[in-house]
């Protein structure tokens, strides 16, 4: 899952070829602002066919948190 999510992040946030791990923080490490996160949510929803509640956004601060969130929503790892 990490590999695919990393691809989506790189594409959405235009961060180039950086290393993305479960610990990567969107704001601090990738300099994503709130608008970037909305773009990312739309892309993840499309990829995994889930609905990400906007009120959950503040909990999703790292790549690992995204993976946990998606797993909770029933997405297969």
């Amino acid at each position, binding site marked *: 899952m990490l590999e695919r999510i990393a691809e989506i992040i790189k594409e959405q946030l235009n961060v180039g070829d950086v290393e993305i791990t479960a610990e990567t923080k969107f704001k601090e490490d990738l300099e994503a602002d709130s*608008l970037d996160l909305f773009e990312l949510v739309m892309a993840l929803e499309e990829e995994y066919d889930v609905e990400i509640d*906007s009120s959950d956004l503040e909990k999703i601060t790292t790549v690992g948190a995204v993976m946990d969130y998606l797993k909770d929503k029933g997405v297969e790892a």
Partner: protein
Amino acid sequence: METKITKLLGIKYPIIQGGMAWVAEYHLAAAVSNAGGLGIIGAASAPAEIVREQIRKTKELTDKPFGVNVMLMNPNAEEVAKVVIEEGVKVVTTGAGNPAKFMGAWKEAGVKVIPVVASVAMAKLMERAGADAVVAEGTESGGHIGSATTMTLVPQVVDAVNIPVIAAGGIADGRGFAAAMMLGAEAVQMGTRFVVAKESIVHANYKEQVIKAKDIDSVITGTSTGHPVRQIRNKMTKEYLRLEKEGASLEDLEYLTLGALRKAVIDGDVVNGTLMAGQIAGLIDKEMTCQEMIEEIMTQAKELLNK
């Protein structure tokens, strides 16, 4: 003029006043509402009890609908969100963040929720979270801004959502109003024009700078911090941009702007203060009452739209 927004909010004209920090206090909000638009109290970073007082004072001056802009980066946002409900405010606009966590409580209390958005993705997610309308705000605006222009953002948001869209950024007269309608908006939000309203408590020096400003007199500071702000250039912005270019720390930059908006709006320090204003400031050339402004805009817009 009747649009989806005038019906939704129970107002006469589809003109909404921006929730500008320090500027959007009760005198201005009440004057805009009394003139048939929707006045807005800008809660900015004010403590919740100050916001309550502002709401009560607005009610003393108008029996028309008005709203409160809740700035979500404000550490007091949660309390302000509650005060809005307790005081029976009918409309909330939100800025600087994601209002989703307050949406449930507001909707339950019958508050109409209108987030300010700067992208299509944000507009779509806000619609899904229950927003009644969105303000699509272009980068022409004063204060905190996104990067898409009003001309490009408004039609794209209109196409992406089924709720009404309010256009903001660069609108100050009947031509801008009519253009926004052509882009599919159901109302406009204006900030800079109302800064120089006769009823606005903004210091005369600040108003003079807005009136004197030309088309290219605004600059964007803070791009490096992730929170870009459009304002009229002065000694402070020159220093800020120099520091920013040199890669100064966030602390140094914040030190420069600490209290700077208050300094400009209240104390009239137009040299060291923050003169937030949109690019349309160049078009604004005199102080008028809110009533005069709104009537003038609507007369001009109706003429253009009926052509």
